[in-house]
Structure formats: structure tokens, C-alpha cells
């Protein structure tokens, strides 16, 4: 591969955005080369400029962006091409797969049409021929042909991402750019999609640029000789090199931090089981799906769920989307009606509507840190609200002091009390949400995918925070997630849910080390993992040029 001109190369590449607050540099001088058939994984957290780099190179960053530097693709100097010439490359020689396929596919077009339109545009197929080719490709990628006329919302997440891949590959491009293609998917579906991409590379000699925030996923897609990994931070590449060597011995401190975040966690020690405070026995929940004019029929969401939890315990509740794990949390908090079984709290049965005093004891932290906070309230107001409701005896001054105290306890500066959620990062907002859940002195905090929307490094920090708060306050933590790694760090015991039933339960360390149930094994096997030697290995690769 040495003598061949690279398929895709960037030199001193920069992307700048005009914003209301003046110009913002998103990419500050990036050098990349990729030969035909090779894979390059660009790793970095949100805002590192990893997506803007590839989008900008192909003119997809929007009207308020400015591009500088050299962009070479397949013998073309992209910057010299007219918009029309550049469009004729897009979808034909380079295909794109984007993150969340539900929002990245057009909602009102049947999926086969979204694949076939590329063929009509670039290959001059007529509508019938393009449709036939699209359906053939769907079948090849493991999609049932009878879903050709389905709309995106009628497919599962994994099927939608296969549609995206099919539309990107319809014209047999030389380069596939995948921008976080598995971030919105369950871990088992992610494993399927990664395997599919790998087989397509082998089959078509496809070059791949894979953008991810997860070093373990990056390691998995760059498994062939010649593949590379580039780590980006703040618009620059901090470390770059052959995948195997770089992952074996990360030189840059930032890469090492990412690697540490992706490393298998040491399981939390199982504590002696305390006296249970929460006893769930044979819990069942039905959802009602409308059928006919006035009738609805029940659809079981949870069946026969039993477990207990005591003070100081952290229970992991693991499962894929649709497994009923969020429903379980809602049922415990009295937000959905139950149809079977009992919930006992401190020896007394719970039945909704819960009295206000109980609401003080049972709190929740949601997945999306922005959506969970009222955008019009300051952080201080959001934090004071639970106190106004549950501790009316406090004076305004007491409340302010309590808010300041909790901001400090979750590691935020006191000045944040006067800010609004949009001025904070996702991780900072999640700290606010945690403070809001803890501030009125709960006895149980349920975290519903509370770290799923966060970057790897932030995730580790938030898990640390939760561990510390639990040690201080002795609350029961119920930690709902699809990610075994966070469960390992945080939870002494774990419950695995599948289709509304508990399929496995036990001490987390035992579950991870020696899973007895087939489904648990599938979940653990699907987890992308990084097996790294100890961190002090020397750096022998080229360091990227600073620009």
C-alpha cells in the first residue's frame, strides 16, 4: 500500500463556524491519509471535531461553515470541484451512515425508496430497476424483502441502520463514512452491525472511516492490517497510528484516559446483604394498546418480577430496549399502574397515588440531562424546588445554603446556581440532576440510563460521583442500563431483564465472570472490549504534527 496514492487525504484541514457569538473553530488543522480498502477510526468525545472533519471535507457542514486546507479524494482535489461535481461524488464514490437512523432517515419515504433514489441519481436506473436493486441489496444485508415499503418508524433500530448502510452502499462506493453508526443501538445490535460492516469491507474492498467516542468500538473496527486509529480532542489529532500499536500502548495522556474508561472495570465488592427495605414480589405491568374504537387490549410489559434491595445497595437492572427495565422503574415510583404482584417499602405495601412524603424518599435521575431540566429555570431554582415542596420549613436563606452545599458535593462551582441548563455541558447537567434527586434526602434513587448519553470519560466521573454519594448517604441505588461496564463499576448485584422477565440475577462479579444464562452470555459477548497491557508501555510511533 506504500506506492499507491491515498484514497482520501486531508492536510492542515480546518473547519470554522460563524455563530451568534462569533467564529468558532471546530477543526484546527487535521492531517489524515487513508488508502483504498483501509479503515480509519476517529475517536473523540462530543465537540472534539471528529464528525465535522469528515462532514466538512465533503461539504456537508452547512452554510455557516468555512473550510480551509487540502482535501484529496480519489484523485480529485475536492476544493476545486464545483458544487455539482462534488454532489456527483456523494452517494456514488463515498457513502455516509449517520448516527441515529430514526432521525437520519426521511420519515415519510418508504425505506426501499430511500435506497433506490441513490441508484436513480447516480446510475441512471429507472424507478423499477432501482427498486429491484434496492430490494436485492436489502435482502443481502439481512432485511426481509417484505419490509421494502415500510416506513422507518415501522422498523427496529438495527433494521433501520441496515437500511442506512444499504442506501450508502447502493452505488458501490470506494469509501464508507460511518458517523457513530452504533451509538443509538443496543449492544447486541451494535455487535451485529459491526460484524456486517466488517464483512462488507472484506467483500467489496471498501475503505472505512468510522467515527466513535468509544475506544473499544474503534479497536473492533480496525482489526485488519494497515488499519489506523486517530484520537481527536478540541479540533486536533492528539495521537494517530496503526491501530494495533496505538491501542496496545497509548502515548498521549488523553488517549490513556480514554483507554482507561474503556477498560473492563473492576467489579464492585459484594457487601453483606442488608435488611431489605424494598421488596418487590411477582410484579406485573400491562400496557394497553388501542384496538377498535373504545376497546384496548393488554400487552404485557413486565411479568413476575421479584427482587429486594436494602440500604447502601446498588442494584443493576440490565436489558436491551424493550426489555421492560424502564417500566420497572416507573412501576416502582408509582408512575404506571401494576396489574399483578406487590411492592413493599419499609414493610408497608405501596399503591399509587403515592403520598407526598413517599415521593421525597423515591427519586429518579433520567437519561437525557438536558431534557430532564426545565430550560427556563436556573440551576439554583431547579435545585431549590424539591426543598420548597418537601422541606417547607426551610427559609429562603437555608434553601440557598443547601443548594450551594449540594452544588459543591456534586463537584460544580457555586456560580452555576444562576446559570441555565443550556449554558452547561451534558455531564455538568447530569451532576445537577443528581443533586436534584439527592437534595431532599431520598432513601432510594433510580437512575434510568443516567450515563448512557455521556462521553466515556464523563461517564466514569459520574459513576464515581454516584458511588461517593451512596457511601455518604446510604441510599438504595437502582441503576438501569444496557451497559454492563457501568453496572460492574457501580452495582453489587445485577438483574438481567429480557422481554419483561428476569432471566438472570446475582452478584455482579459472579454474573460477569461466569454467566450461566445464555442471554447474559450473549449480552456480555456483544460488549466491545479493549484488552490492553498495563499503561506504562513506551511510545514508539510518530506523534502527529502540531499545527
Amino acid at each position, binding site marked *: 500500500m506504500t506506492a499507491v496514492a491515498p484514497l482520501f487525504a486531508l492536510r492542515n484541514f480546518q473547519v470554522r463556524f460563524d455563530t451568534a457569538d462569533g467564529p468558532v473553530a471546530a477543526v484546527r488543522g487535521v492531517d489524515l491519509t487513508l488508502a483504498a480498502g483501509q479503515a480509519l477510526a476517529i475517536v473523540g468525545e462530543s465537540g472534539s471535531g471528529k464528525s465535522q472533519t469528515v*462532514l466538512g471535507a*465533503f461539504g*456537508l457542514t452547512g*452554510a455557516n461553515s468555512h473550510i480551509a486546507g487540502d482535501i484529496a479524494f480519489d484523485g480529485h482535489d475536492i476544493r476545486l470541484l464545483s458544487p*455539482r461535481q462534488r*454532489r*456527483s*461524488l*456523494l*452517494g*456514488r464514490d463515498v*457513502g*455516509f451512515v*449517520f*448516527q*441515529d437512523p430514526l*432521525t*437520519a*432517515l*426521511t*420519515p*415519510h*419515504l418508504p425505506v426501499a425508496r430511500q435506497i433506490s*433514489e*441513490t441508484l436513480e*441519481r*447516480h446510475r441512471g436506473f429507472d424507478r423499477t430497476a432501482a427498486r429491484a436493486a434496492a430490494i436485492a441489496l436489502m435482502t443481502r444485508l439481512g432485511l426481509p424483502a417484505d419490509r421494502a415499503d415500510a*416506513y422507518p*418508524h415501522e422498523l427496529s433500530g438495527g433494521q433501520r441502520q441496515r437500511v*442506512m448502510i444499504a*442506501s450508502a452502499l447502493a452505488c458501490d462506493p470506494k469509501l464508507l463514512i460511518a458517523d457513530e453508526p452504533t451509538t443509538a443501538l443496543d449492544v447486541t445490535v451494535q455487535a451485529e452491525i459491526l460484524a456486517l460492516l466488517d464483512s462488507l469491507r472484506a467483500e467489496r474492498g471498501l475503505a472505512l472511516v468510522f467515527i466513535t467516542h468509544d475506544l473499544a468500538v474503534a479497536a473492533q473496527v480496525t482489526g485488519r492490517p494497515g488499519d489506523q486509529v486517530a484520537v481527536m480532542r478540541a479540533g486536533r489529532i492528539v495521537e494517530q497510528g496503526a491501530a494495533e500499536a496505538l491501542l496496545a500502548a497509548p502515548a498521549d495522556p488523553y488517549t490513556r484516559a480514554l483507554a482507561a474508561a474503556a477498560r473492563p472495570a473492576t467489579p464492585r465488592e459484594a457487601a453483606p446483604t442488608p435488611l431489605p427495605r424494598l421488596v418487590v414480589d411477582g410484579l406485573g405491568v400491562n400496557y394497553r394498546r388501542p384496538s377498535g*374504537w373504545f376497546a384496548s387490549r393488554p400487552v404485557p410489559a413486565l411479568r413476575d418480577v421479584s427482587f429486594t434491595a436494602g440500604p447502601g445497595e446498588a442494584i443493576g437492572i440490565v436489558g436491551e430496549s424493550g426489555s421492560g427495565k424502564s417500566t420497572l422503574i416507573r412501576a416502582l415510583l408509582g408512575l404506571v399502574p401494576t396489574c399483578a404482584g406487590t411492592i413493599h417499602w419499609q414493610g408497608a405495601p405501596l399503591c399509587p397515588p403515592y403520598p407526598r412524603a413517599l415521593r421525597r424518599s423515591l427519586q429518579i435521575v433520567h437519561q437525557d440531562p438536558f431534557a430532564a431540566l426545565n430550560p427556563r429555570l436556573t440551576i439554583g431554582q431547579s435545585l431549590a424546588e424539591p426543598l420548597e415542596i418537601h422541606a417547607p420549613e426551610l427559609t429562603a436563606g437555608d434553601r440557598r445554603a443547601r443548594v450551594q452545599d449540594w452544588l459543591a458535593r456534586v463537584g460544580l462551582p457555586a456560580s452555576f446556581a444562576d446559570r441555565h441548563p443550556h449554558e452547561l455541558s451534558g455531564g455538568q447537567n447530569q451532576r445537577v440532576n443528581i443533586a436534584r434527586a439527592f437534595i431532599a434526602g431520598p432513601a432510594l434513587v433510580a437512575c434510568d440510563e443516567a450515563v448512557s448519553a455521556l462521553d466515556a470519560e464523563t461517564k466514569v466521573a459520574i459513576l464515581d460521583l454516584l458511588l461517593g454519594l451512596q457511601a455518604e448517604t446510604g441510599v438504595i441505588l437502582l441503576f438501569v442500563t444496557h451497559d454492563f461496564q457501568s453496572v460492574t463499576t457501580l452495582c453489587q448485584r445485577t438483574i438481567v431483564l429480557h422481554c419483561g422477565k428476569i432471566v438472570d440475577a446475582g452478584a455482579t462479579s459472579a454474573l460477569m465472570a461466569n454467566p450461566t444464562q445464555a442471554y447474559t452470555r450473549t449480552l456480555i459477548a456483544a460488549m466491545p472490549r479493549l484488552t490492553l497491557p498495563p499503561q506504562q508501555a513506551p511510545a514508539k510511533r510518530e506523534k502527529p504534527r502540531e499545527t
Partner: protein
Amino acid sequence: MGRFLLGRLLGAIPTLLAIILLSFAIMRAAPGGPFDGERALPPEVEANLRAAYDLDAPLAVQLGRYLAGLARFDFGPSFKYADFSVGELIAGGAPVSAIIGGAALLLATVLGIALGSVAALDRHRALDSGVMALAVVGQVVPTFVVGPLLALLFGLWLGWLPIAGLEGGARAFVLPVVTLALPYVASIARLTRGSLREVLAQPFIRTARAKGLDDATVLWRHALKPALLPVVSYLGPAAAGLLTGSVVVETVFGLPGIGRYFVQGAINRDYTLVLGVVVLYGALIILFNLLVDILYGWLDPRLARR
């Protein structure tokens, strides 16, 4: 779908009944009556008139008789236009109003969506600002100012178009249609621009561009349908309003539509005439909102009823 339609049409009956009941009560609660004039009628004459028009019966009986008539599409006699039934009055004016309103609706929809799209797609902001400035003017300048101005310019000074009445065939409709459509063009253009801007920022538009599609295809195939959702919900009630005529336009251009009956009927306490036009307007509102709901399913299959 058939079931859905049937359900909605049956559901319209109680809605219409409620509208009739309310209008009936409000009209009767208003002071004065249909036979009040400059000069008070002799009591015996008024009593005769009231008996002739069935106004001496108890209110409940009057309402019952009115509803019974309505079931046979009999809207009752007009109190003010003697010798005419309300049905005849509406049938006489409705075609004029419907033609002008329908044409204005078509013009407003097509022109509004086109202008809004141009403004939304404009990367240089010049066209955008121009269109939006015009739209604001179109929205704030009232019809009774625009109408006479247009008549002055195109009718009197340039002499291209007739300014009043229906003589002159299709040309006679041009000025009323344009006058009636203008504020709607402005509203639809603003709605389209705003919602198209939002849709163009969606991830699926980036996907479409990443396939190498040109701007026109991205707009027509991917962006326009979801962008039209708010426009369509605006168009439902707007269509009912346009088709039932506008008292201002009819007055400015001297047209025999039904828009004026809304005002005159109410001023004259012409109970049956008011109820007649209200029932017509209510039925149209219900019908167009049903159409809007069906269109929603076509524009966005996630909202489709099955």
C-alpha cells in the same frame, strides 16, 4: 380508514348541535328583535308578524321546529328579506363566495408555499429578507386598505380590470381574489419558511444531501412534506373562512356573496339567517379539519390512522 371517516362524521353531529344551540341562545339573549325599526310597529301588527314567523311559541318549541327543518335542509324564512328563505339567500350568494374564496385559497396556498420555500432556501439572506418584509406588510395592512388601493391602481388609473360587480367575466374576479388572498399568502409564506427552516436542519436532510441529491430534489422529496404540517393545519380553518366570503371584499367590490350575511344578519336580528350561515361555517370547519387530519397521515405516516 373508512371506520375513522364514519366515526368523525357521526361525531360532527353533536358538535353542530352544540354550535346551533349556542348561536340560538346568544341571538335570543341579544336585546331587540327582527321587527325593531326606526319607528315602533303598532302592537297588533307586531303580534301578527310574530305569529306568522312562529316567534310566539315557547323557545324550546322554536328550537325544536328549527332543528326539524334543518334535518330536511330547510333553513327557515329570512326575517328581513321577506319572500326569501335563508336557503335561497345562501344558494344565491354561495357560488360567488365559493368561487372567489376557492380561487383565493388556491392562490394563497401556491404562492405562499412557493415564496416561503424561496425564503427558506435562500443562502444569501437578501431574498429571504425581501420576502419576509413583504409578508409582514401583507399581514398588517388591512383588506379594506389594500382593496381600494388595488382598485384605484388597476381599475381607475391603468384601466386594466373592472373594479366592481360581476360584469366582465373572469376579469371581474381578479381584484377581489387578489385582495382576499394577500393576507393569507403572507401568513402561509411565513409559516412555510419557518417550518421549512426547521426541517432543513434535521438529520435526514443531511442524509439526503450526502446521497448527492440536488437542492430541488432535497426540497421536493425530503423536506417539503414534513414542513407542510403547520401550513395544512392553518389551511383548514382558513379554507372555511375564505369559502364563506368576506364582508369587506364583498363591500369594496360590490359583490353578491354571503360574507355580508354574517354581519347584516346579526345587526338585523335576522335569527334564521344568522343561524343558517353559522351552520354552514361550522359544517365547513368540521369538514376541513377532517381533511387536515387525513392530509396529516399522508404528509407524515407516523401520524396516519389505520
